[in-house]
C-alpha cells in the first residue's frame, strides 16, 4: 500500500476544477462543474460498497433520494439551514443503509443486486403514497427560503460551494477508508468472503458499515441537489437510471480505486455532454452509452485507471 501519494495531486486537481466557475463567473460552467462534482461524489461513494467490498448496489440512488427527502422536509417545514439539513439527510440515508444492510447484505452476488433494485422501487412506491411529503406530486420550495442565503442567485452559489466541500470531503474519506484496517477488511470480503471470515473479519458488521458509509455522502448530495432545484418528486429522487449511471462511472474509471471513480465521473460527464450536444449522436446517446459500457465490460473490466495501474508499477501509488 505504501505511502499515499494519490491525494497530493488529486485534491489540488479537484480544487482547480472547483475554482474555474468563480474565477470565470460563468453560470454555464458552474452548472457543468456542479454536475461533475455531484457525479464524482456519487461514484466515489458507491465505490466503497461496490469497488472495495464487492457488493453490487444496483439501486444505490435510493440513498440520494432518502437524503434529499429528509433534508427537503426539514428545510421546507422546519426552516432548517441547508448545512444541518444536509447532514441530517446524510445521516438518515446512512441509518437506512445500515438497517437495510443487516437485512439484504445476507444475500450474496446477483441476489443482493436485485434486492437493492427492489428496495429502491419499494421506497419510491412508498414515497408516492405518503401525503405528508407530497406523494407523487412531490414538494416545492417557497422561494422565500432562499432569502436566508441572500436571494436565489446567492443561494445557488452557496449550494455550489457546499457541493464542492462535500466532494472534497468524500474523496478524502473514501481514500482514508481504503487505506485503513477497515478498508483492508472490506477488500478481503470482496476477494473471498468466507476466507475473510475465517481470518477473523466480522463480515456482517463490516458490510453494513461499508453500506452506511457509501450511503452517507449520496444522501448529502441529494440534499444539496434538491435544495438547488427547489423541488423534489419521487420520480426524480429514485430514478433507477441514475443508479446505473453511478455504476457506469465506477466501471469506466476503475473499480476499487478512488482515482478511478473520480476519473470515471469526469469522463462520463464529458461523454454524456458530448453525446447529448452532438446532433449526430443526440438521439442515439442511449444506444451509444450501451455500446461503450458493453465494450468496457468485455474488454477493459478494470477501467481506465485500473488499466494504467496494470501497465505502470510506478504510477500505482499515485492512483490509489
Amino acid at each position, binding site marked *: *500500500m505504501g505511502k499515499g501519494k494519490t491525494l497530493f495531486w488529486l485534491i489540488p486537481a479537484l480544487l482547480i476544477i472547483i475554482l474555474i466557475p468563480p474565477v470565470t463567473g460563468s453560470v454555464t460552467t458552474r452548472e457543468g462543474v456542479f454536475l461533475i462534482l455531484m457525479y464524482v461524489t456519487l461514484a466515489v461513494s458507491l465505490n466503497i460498497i461496490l469497488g472495495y467490498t464487492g457488493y453490487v448496489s444496483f439501486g444505490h440512488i435510493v440513498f440520494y433520494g432518502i437524503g434529499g427527502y429528509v433534508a427537503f422536509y426539514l428545510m421546507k417545514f422546519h426552516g432548517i439551514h441547508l448545512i444541518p439539513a444536509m447532514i441530517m439527510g446524510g445521516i438518515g440515508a446512512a441509518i437506512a443503509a445500515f438497517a437495510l444492510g443487516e437485512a439484504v447484505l445476507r444475500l450474496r452476488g446477483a441476489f443482493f443486486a436485485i434486492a437493492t433494485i427492489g428496495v429502491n422501487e419499494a421506497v419510491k412506491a412508498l414515497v408516492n403514497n405518503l401525503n405528508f411529503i407530497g406523494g407523487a406530486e412531490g414538494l416545492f420550495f417557497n422561494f422565500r427560503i432562499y432569502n436566508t442565503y441572500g436571494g436565489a442567485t446567492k443561494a445557488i452559489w452557496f449550494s455550489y460551494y457546499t457541493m464542492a466541500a462535500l466532494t472534497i470531503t468524500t474523496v478524502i474519506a473514501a481514500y482514508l477508508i481504503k*487505506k*485503513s*484496517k477497515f478498508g*483492508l*477488511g472490506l*477488500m*478481503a470480503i*470482496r*476477494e*473471498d468472503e*468466507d*476466507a*475473510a*471470515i*475465517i*481470518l*477473523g*473479519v*466480522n*463480515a456482517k458488521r463490516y458490510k453494513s458499515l461499508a453500506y452506511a458509509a457509501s450511503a452517507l455522502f449520496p444522501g448529502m448530495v441529494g440534499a444539496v441537489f434538491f435544495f438547488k432545484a427547489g423541488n423534489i418528486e419521487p420520480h426524480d429522487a429514485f430514478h433507477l437510471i441514475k443508479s446505473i449511471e453511478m455504476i457506469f462511472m465506477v466501471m469506466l474509471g476503475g473499480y*476499487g480505486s478512488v482515482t478511478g471513480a473520480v476519473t470515471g465521473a469526469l469522463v462520463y460527464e464529458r461523454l454524456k455532454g458530448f453525446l447529448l450536444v452532438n446532433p449526430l449522436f443526440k438521439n442515439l446517446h442511449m444506444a451509444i452509452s450501451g455500446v461503450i459500457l458493453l465494450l468496457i465490460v468485455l474488454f477493459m473490466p478494470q477501467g481506465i485507471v485500473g488499466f494504467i495501474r496494470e501497465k505502470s508499477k510506478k504510477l500505482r501509488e499515485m492512483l490509489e
Partner: protein
Amino acid sequence: MILQVEDVTKTFGGLVALSDVAFQVEEGEILGIIGPNGAGKTTLFNAISGVFKIDKGRVKFQDRDITSLPPNARARLGIARTHQIVKPLNDLTVVENVMVGACFGKGNASLPAARKKAQEVLEFVGLKEKGEVLAGKLNVPEKKRLEMARALASDPAIILLDEVLAGLNPIEVSSMLKVIKAIRDKGITILMIEHLMHAIMNVSDRVMALVYGRKVSEGTPGEVANDPQVIEAYLGDPDLALKLLKDKRRRG
C-alpha cells in the same frame, strides 16, 4: 487442554458427517488426523473453526465454550486454519493477504504493525520475495505457503492445517515439514489433516483416525498404525500398513 471437542455430531441431509466425535488437544502438541476420503476430517475442522453450526456436542477452547461463536470470533480468540482448497485473496498482494490475518486474528494488529508482522511471517515460510506479487499469480505450492503465512500472522494459539502437503513434490514436502516443526517450536499447537502417511506419522506427537465420521483410533503414531481397526477400515491392506511401520522405524 487447549481444545476439547465433546461428542460433536454433524449431519448433512441424511449423511452423518461426524458422529459423536470427542477428543482433546494438549497445548503445544501436534495432533495428526488421518482417515480415508469422506471420513469427515475437513468437516471436523469446519466444526472447530465455526464454519457451520454443529447438530450436537460442544467445542471448548482454552476452557471456554465456543460452540455458538461465529468463525470470525473464534479467529479472534486464536484459532487459525488453512484450507485444503486454497483461498487466496487474489487481487490483493501477498503482503496484504498476510496483513489481513495479522489485523483481524488474535494479534489484532494495527496496519503498520501488521505490515511488519507480515514481512516476518513471509520470511519464515519462505515467501519473502513474493511480497508485492498479487496472490492470484502465485503457483499452488506458494499459495499453500500463503495460507500458512496468513494463519500464522494472526498469532494463533492453535492452527488447523488442512492437507498443506498435498500436491507438493518431495523437496517442497520436506521444506514444508520444517516449517511445521518450526511453528510447533514457537509454542503453537497444531492440528493437521494429512494423507501423506510417512509425513504425518513422522511429525505428529499423537494421531487420531476418523472413519465414516467416527473416531476409530487415537494414540501415538505407532499405536494408531498398528490398530487393526485402522488397518482394516482405512488402509484396507495390511501389507501397506507394514510398509508404513517400516518407513516409520527407518526414519526413526
